[in-house]
């Protein structure tokens, strides 16, 4: 499902920073893996590369059989929107749109007809347990609820891959646990491949596969 071969990522600033150093990684369909490591170890960079939000400096990335190297930005966007759903630490909901509209946004962007879009958005919000909050604006919701909306949005087209960057990082522990169980639940029900970046060992402990990064390299990859 996800194949990384010798992937490196450097940032050229005043100082050259090597965020990822010749990383090889393979994630199979339907896996649920946690990526852990101290801050600055390259977790988020890895996730961004897999999600097609960023491009590697060297190496090859293949997502669901599509080689990302050398494809255009628009093609990359298409891969992203058809195959990947994102969940962010800060939710990244559009403050001006209602829950329903936020969830419907990716579908709109795909040019889905209005009726179908709305039906799917309702379905998704129901899935994350927010059917009562359809018309609310993000600022009227609690943090956990916002993250549920973000998850619903990430699932809009039922992408085969779900990427979560510190999904609980901005939530209290109780809500965090709720969100985590939601992700587990969705993984089970939808059979998606899920990668969660976290520094929370408790969360990591719940995942079947644990990938540990340090200084841009995978130092440990274990199935538990």
């Amino acid at each position: 499902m996800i194949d990384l071969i010798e992937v490196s990522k450097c940032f050229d600033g005043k100082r050259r920073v090597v965020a990822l150093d010749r990383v090889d990684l393979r994630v199979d369909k339907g896996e649920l893996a946690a990526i852990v490591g101290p801050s600055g170890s390259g977790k988020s960079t890895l996730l961004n590369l897999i999600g097609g939000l960023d491009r590697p400096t060297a190496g090859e990335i293949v997502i669901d059989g599509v080689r990302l190297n050398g494809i255009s930005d628009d093609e990359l966007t298409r891969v992203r929107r058809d195959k990947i759903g994102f969940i962010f630490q800060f939710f990244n909901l559009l403050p001006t749109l209602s829950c329903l509209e936020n969830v419907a946004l990716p579908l709109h962007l795909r040019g889905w007809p209005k009726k179908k879009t709305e039906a799917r958005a309702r379905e998704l919000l129901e899935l994350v347990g927010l059917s009562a909050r359809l018309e609310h604006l993000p600022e009227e919701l609690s943090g956990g609820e916002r993250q549920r909306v973000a998850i619903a949005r990430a699932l809009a087209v039922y992408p085969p891959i779900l990427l979560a960057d510190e999904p609980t990082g901005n939530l209290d522990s109780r809500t965090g646990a709720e969100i985590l169980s939601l992700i587990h639940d969705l993984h089970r029900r939808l059979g998606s491949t899920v990668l969660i970046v976290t520094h929370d060992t408790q969360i990591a402990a719940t995942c079947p596969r644990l990938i540990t990064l340090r200084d841009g390299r995978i130092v440990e990859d274990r199935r538990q």
Partner: protein
Amino acid sequence: MRLARLIGWPYARKHVLRTCLTVAGIALGVAVFVAMHSANRAILGAFQRTVNQIAGSAQLQVTAGGFGFPEEILERVQSLPEVQVAVPVIEAVVDTGLAAQGSLLILGVDMTGDRSLRQYDLESGEEAIIEDPLVFLAQPDSLIVTREFAARNRLAIGSRLSLMTMEGPKEFVVRGIMRPGGFGRAFGGNVAVMDVYAAQKMLGRGRRFDRIDVGVREGIPVERCRQALQAALGPGFEVEPPGARGQHFESMLRGYTVTMNISSLFALFIGMFMIYNSFQIAVSERRNEIGILRALGATQAQIRGLFLVESAMLGGAGAAAGILLGGVLARFSAAYIGALLQDVYGVPQNIEAAELSTSLVAAGAALGVVASVVAAWIPSRAAARVDPVQALQKGKYQVLTAGENRTRRLAAAASLAAALVCLVVGDTAEVFYAGYLLAVLTAILLAPALSLWLSKLLRPLLRWLRPVEGTLAADSLIHAPRRTSATVAALMLSLAMVIGFGGMAGAIYDSVTEWMDQVLNPDLFVTASGSISQRNFTFPAAFARELEHIEGVEQVQVVRHARVIFRGVPVSVVAAEVEKLAGKVRRIVMQGKLDEMYRLTARGRGVIVSDNFADLRGVRLGEVVELPSPRGMLRLPVVGITRDYTDQQGSVLIDREVYRRWWQDDTADVLRVYLRPGFSPQEVKRRILEKFAARHRLFVLENAEVRREIVRLTDQWFGMTYNQIAVAVLVAVLGIVNTLTVSITDRRRELGVLQSVGGLRRQVRHTVWMEAVGIALIGLVLGLALGAVNLYYTVEMVHRVAGLRIDYQYPWRIAGLLIPGMLLIALVSALWPSEKAVRGRLVEALEYE
């Protein structure tokens, strides 16, 4: 201050482009202000300098308006014991016919005595020729030119120079070359001296002088001599120091100055909105930073100070750029206005350089800084009120408080009420201008609420156009009312300005056309000077009678125009054969009965004045006007007021007989020729030229040519206004670009999310474009509406300042052009920001705070 450098500078550097755009608004406003004032000053200065240089050491000048006076006056002046020297002068600007030389100021003087007043600092070597005025006087084709002029045209002593005289083109011989400096510097060196009697002949002056320059006897106060002269000559003459001519000239410039001031005020206003806008955004963007500063112990006053110092620095930078730009602009505008004055008023102009005075630079700088600080006042207050706890929480957006909105609406209502009161009771200029300002203020105060309301109205439309992008764009407009409304307000102001000036221009063109149709109906105009606005040359009246014998000519009307000083302002006096005129021209009557006023004027029992004369000089029907003439004050009642665009200072029509009697002059400068039916103007024109061109200086203009000339002059008059409009639109465009750039930055994360959830670049671009279109649409609606109000005030102002009554006509055509134009401009100005939106690094965008 240190805080500003520490915090503000990195921010400004990080947003170089935005900072530049913000500064650009102030820069343009200051530039227009500086350019106009320094151009004005340069023109006045050039005029004054020319006057002074030409006046030499003359302490007083005797004139009688533009008609001149008979030669005998000279002896009366010379016989006064207070007078040391009195020399006659004829002054005229003539075309040289030399390529790229333009006009030559011909100064006719009497060499036998003139050198006691003027230093003819002549090149050595030619001394014998120069020092021997006998040759100069004996040969009327003698000319003294300046070294500059000689060098430019490769002239030397003995060179020939062809000039158009009343007797056709004639060769003149350079018999002297003046050294630069003093008198030779006047009029940019394009000065030539000839014998006053030769000048009379050349210019068709008859036995008349334009002016007498007087040197006061030593030991006698100038004022006493002036009084003695005034008493000896009577009220028909002006006896004034040379400097007084500058004041008359300044009064002619006044209408223009007012327009310019208003334009630069508008530009500055628009610039202020851009500053306001930028700061508003900076405050919301830097809430986090402010929160940290506050948490670290910065007081509210320190935060406010930080922003105010920043704004002052921005204003200073803008002012500096504006002053530089203004200096450049001034050169162009001075040349332009100079040419205009020469064409419209026939005033000799030669602007050497528009220089920036220290006081003007200081004023420009102060203007920029003050405008900037005032504009940043509210945002900096908002910054000071930022709650540090809230600010430090991520992902929160600032919301416009309801209280602020209410206050604003109340202020708007109050200002509207005050504006209406001013309108109703407003009689004085101050109240009128206050009302104008209040009306604009009302619009500005209402702009946020209106633009919010319009954004909401616009949402379905944009959504219908493009469901996703449209909605996003509309929401962005709705949810960032500050960002939107400041730009909308700037746009509204500039569009209102376009509508106001455009409408005024359109209405004036219409009125001028109507007037031309009614009044300018002769088939041919025969003039002695090349254009209808110049009156340097005149015909003897007998020439008109000769012209009547040309086959095909039905009637010739003799007209003489000149300026006389009426209540301190040079107005135009038109002496025409009123009885003949009555048979041909139906003037557009404002007050009085046409036939009656014609009858009385023809009998020398009254004058007909133009509507702008009546308004500007405050003269009513029936009131007696006093016109200075060489025979004393001519007092005649106003028997009619008609619409007339002959002159911007107003014109007075008198009968030719009255003119002949009071001015003792029988010359004409324009002959209005009516043809018999069946004769073509071209044919008769050819005949006239065939018969007279060889021995008379004359120009035959067909009706259409004269109309074209008038339209051209009107164009020229408005040319500057159009440039101002262009500046206003430019500032507004800058505003849009600024807003969009800011909006893009503001929404970086949002746009990043959009892309991360699958938005294509195209879609992101469209969102930005639609936002721009949305702003333009709202700006258009408000601008076109405020334009209607602005036009009302502009029309009123034209009436008050220029005395022109023009009809209120909303310029639908201009509005029609503005709509697609502004939308297109908005789209174009969105191109760059939209690219910026899709080019940025997604990861950064998503993490952007």
